[in-house]
Each structure stands twice: as C-alpha cells, then as structure tokens.
C-alpha cells in the first residue's frame, strides 16, 4: 500500500515536472508539420499540440501517449471515411476542436472521438457535426466529458448512433454538454459511479438519457425536451435523479422517465411538464419519488405492475389528466402527504392537511387503459358521474390506495438540499 502511494506520488511529480518542461508542437496547414498525425508522431509524452486554424482531412488519428491537443478554430473533416480521434493512452486532453463528417459503419460504430481503455482523459468544448457516434468511451475510467456540443442529423432516420456513449466505464463526469438529434443523447451501458450534470438533451429519436445495467449514477440539473423518452433507466440500481426538468416528451409511447427493473433509487426535486406520461414504472422496487412537481401531464404516474415498497410523498400533482394509473395490488407502496390539485376535501381543523383521504385513481383511467379510444369521453358528464360514484364508494379501484394526509396547499419544496 505504501509502495503504491509512493509510485502514485512520483508519477504526479513526474507529470507536473514534465508539464513545465514539455514542448509545444504547432500544426499549421502550410507549416512543416501540416497534419495532426505527424505532430503526434513527433511528440513526446505530455507535450502540447497546438492546432492552428484550418481544415484537416484526417481519420484514424490514434493517440497512444499522454498528450494535450488544443485547437485554435481547427476543423477536422473525416470525409465520411471513419473514426477521427482514437485515444488509447492515459492523460490525454482534446479541447476546442470542430469535428465533422464521421463515417457510418454497420458493425463498427464509428465515433468522432473514441476513448479506449484509458484513464484521466478530458474531452472539452468540442463541436461535433454530421456524426454517427459522437463521443464513445469504452472500458475507461476517471475521465471528464465537458461542454461539448453534438448536432446529429437524425430526423426520422434511424441509422444514427448515440451522442455520448459509455460502455463498461466507471467514474466519468459528464457536464455542460448539449446533444440533439441523435438516437440516444447520452447512453450508459454497464457504467457505474458516473455523474451527469447540467446537460441539455433534446429532439432525440429514442431517449435523452439512457441507462442499461448501470448502478450508482447521479443525474442533476439536466433538461430533457421532446425525446422518445426523457430518461430511460433499465435493469439498474442505486441511482439518484434530482433537480432535472422533463418537458414536452409527447407522443403515443413518449415518457418523461421510463423505469424498468430499477431498484433502490431516488427521484426527487424534478419538474415534469407536458409529457404524455411523466413516469412509467414497471418492475421497480424501493424507489422514493419525493418533492417532484407533476404539471399538466396526460398521466403523472403509470404503475404497470410488479412494483413493491415505493414511496410517493411530498409531490405536487397539478392539473394532470390522470394523476395515477395503477395495476395490481397495493404492494406496500405509499402515496401519503402529496398535494393533488384535483382534491376536493376540506380542512376543518386548519392543520394544512385534508380531513378526508384522497383517492388518486379515477375509474375512467382503467377504461382508457383498456380502450385508448375512449379518451374522447374524458370531459363528458357521464365520466364525471362514474368517477364521482367510484370515489364515494370504491368498487373497482384498490380500496386502500389512498393519500391519508393530502396537503391543502401546494408544497413549497426546499430546493437547497
């Protein structure tokens, strides 16, 4: 243990020492060094490669030693031939580049920037256009992906890759990125302990952010607009999502958040606005939904069954067509202490909590679920009558699915946590 510490210390000293004495190689379209590849070949470990303004038509730029590549308005044009940057060494930085025309391949997923089995890399402030995959990290850890802009071309085209993809990665920070019009904005597969902050992901063909078989990841302050689903979490556990905005994910199979086989997760302080379904839940256990605002969604929560021991507390449900669609038994799920704008009870003892329990399920939501076309009767008197009679004496809806302490006033979330 002491030895490894010594080695680490000496490596850090070495890095810093070399950092000061490292030389700078300038790449210029008309200079002696006129390609990035040539500069990399000439460079020694920890050198700085400064790429001057101009267009460089290069593909398969393999970076096999620790280097910093800095662009001054340089454009790298792949001419649709293949991958552009491939990082295969630790301590590599790629900053301020514009990368265009990444090739499309059916089996090899060509990426603008690929990181392969590396650590401590920084990919910062790059602009990527006309891509297949944008930034593809595989079997890498302790790296940062910061402030990149990725503009995909996927419209109805499905042959598009993902904006930022992680495959078997750990401890990656993804911050301040903008991704639009790709398949999945950000996709994490088998990737743990990653943090995803302040990203904007919109107009993507499938998902804004997608987790598969990933655990212990944190998502904060992101916004997801007009995707197939804002965030999809599948077969994952111990995730945290807070202070995000999910809006306008609208369409027959569009969701703010899609949960499938997810365990031990916190979803709190988020805003869900104008989604067809705010959260679609299937086979997910021990999840805390707290301090969220559900505003003007078709369905706020759609619980499709096999969900156990979930807590839905201290949320605001404001003007959703249906607050809750529920299948199956109560399964120790708890819906207490929320504010429901559809609540019509009273508070005679003035303690801020309604005196009559609230039943969030409308009978009509079951009918719509079975026969979607019946939605046209949503605002009809007949539906109001059957919903009212069901509310007075529940026959079909789960008898014990109630909020025992509904708030009378909208909950002011303490957003400082």
């Amino acid at each position: 243990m002491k030895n490894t510490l010594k080695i680490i210390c000496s490596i850090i000293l070495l890095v810093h020492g070399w950092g000061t004495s490292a030389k700078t190689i300038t790449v210029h379209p008309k200079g002696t060094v006129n390609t990035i590849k040539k500069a990399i070949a000439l460079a020694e470990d920890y050198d700085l490669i400064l790429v001057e303004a101009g267009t460089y038509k290069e593909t398969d730029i393999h970076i096999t030693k620790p280097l910093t590549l800095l662009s001054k308005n340089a454009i790298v044009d792949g001419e649709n031939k293949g991958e552009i940057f491939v990082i295969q060494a630790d301590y590599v930085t790629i900053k301020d580049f514009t990368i265009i025309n990444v090739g499309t391949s059916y089996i090899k997923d060509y990426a603008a920037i690929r990181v392969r089995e590396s650590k401590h890399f920084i990919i910062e402030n790059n602009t990527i256009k006309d891509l297949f995959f944008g930034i593809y990290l595989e079997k890498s850890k302790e790296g940062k992906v910061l402030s990149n802009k990725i503009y995909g071309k996927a419209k109805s085209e499905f042959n598009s890759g993902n904006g930022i993809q992680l495959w078997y990665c750990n401890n990656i920070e993804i911050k301040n990125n903008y991704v639009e019009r790709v398949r999945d904005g950000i996709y994490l597969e088998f990737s743990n302990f990653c943090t995803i902050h302040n990203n904007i992901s919109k107009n993507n063909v499938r998902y804004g952010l997608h987790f598969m078989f990933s655990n212990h990841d944190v998502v904060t302050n992101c916004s997801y607009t007009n995707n197939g689903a804002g965030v999809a979490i599948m077969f994952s556990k111990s995730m945290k999502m807070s202070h995000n905005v999910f809006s306008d994910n609208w369409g027959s199979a569009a969701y703010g958040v899609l949960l499938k086989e997810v365990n031990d997760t916190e979803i709190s302080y988020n805003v869900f606005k104008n989604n067809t379904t705010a959260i679609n839940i299937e086979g997910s256990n021990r999840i805390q939904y707290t301090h969220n605002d559900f505003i003007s969604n078709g369905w706020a929560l759609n619980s499709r069954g096999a969900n156990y021991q979930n807590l839905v507390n201290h949320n605001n449900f404001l003007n959703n067509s249906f607050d809750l669609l529920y299948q199956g038994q109560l399964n120790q799920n708890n819906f207490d202490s929320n504010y429901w704008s559809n609540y019509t009870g009273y508070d005679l003892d003035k303690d801020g909590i309604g005196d009559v329990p609230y039943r969030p399920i409308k009978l009509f939501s079951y009918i719509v679920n079975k026969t979607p076309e019946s939605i046209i009767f949503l605002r009809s008197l007949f539906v109001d009558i059957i919903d009212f009679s069901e509310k007075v004496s529940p026959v079909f809806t789960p008898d014990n699915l109630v909020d025992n302490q509904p708030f009378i006033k909208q909950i002011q979330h303490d957003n400082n946590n």
Partner: protein
Amino acid sequence: MKPFAYFLLLVLFVSCTVKVQPIDYGTDDCDFCKMGIVDTKHAAQLVTTKGKNYKFDAIECMLHYIEQQNQPLTVYQHLLVADLLNPGVLIPAEQAHFIISKNIPSPMGAFLSATKTKEQTAKLIEEYTGEHYTFAALRQQLSHH
C-alpha cells in the same frame, strides 16, 4: 352481381392473409422490453398464424418472449431476425446463423446477432471472435440463464 361476389371473396381473402407488418424504426416499441426500436441490425419480429405481429428491438427479446409465452413454435407463422450484414432486412430465424461475440454489442446486452449463412458467421468470428449458434442451440443456451 358476379364481379361483386369476386370482390367480396377478394376482400375476405386479403383480410385473412398472415402479413408481416414492416417495423417502423424510431416509432415502434419492443413488445417485450418496451424500448423504442431503432437498431436495424438487431431487431426481430414474430407473426402468429392468426396474423398478429410482435416486434422486438433485439433478438434476445424475441427469444425471451417466446419462452415466456411457453407455446410451441408452430403458433408462429413467421419468426424473423435482422440480418447483421444487411441492416433493415429480416430473415427467417430458423434458417439463420447466430453469433454471440463480446465485440458486437446488441441492444439488450446479450451480444447476439444473426447472419444469413454459416460462412458469414465464420468470417465475423474470425474478425471479432465469438461463438456460432443455430436457432435451436441458441434457444437452449438462453434458457439456461
């Protein structure tokens, strides 16, 4: 009167044929895992003898679906899987050759793809490593997990 009778017969006949509905990539959802179907290299489809279509985003989803239904394969008129080498083209599953390779990811994490011929699979294995499976062997392999 006669043309009308023919017409009626035609309508009846057409409406009863078992049809493969093309997958609408980017719009359709997987009937097993609910994920949006976007990958033209790994999609799959089942059509029952009654003409009902089930679409999947991955071959593994189709196999799990078949297992879950627990019905003989004869209830399916068509079992189709995407051809890895011709994205967007579906081929009959029972004649296809399958490859599980850690270097060719598939949507649901089974690393499973299909090709038309054994030679194509062999060539892929040479390049990407992996194992070759027939449809029957594959079903057995996946049911162990």
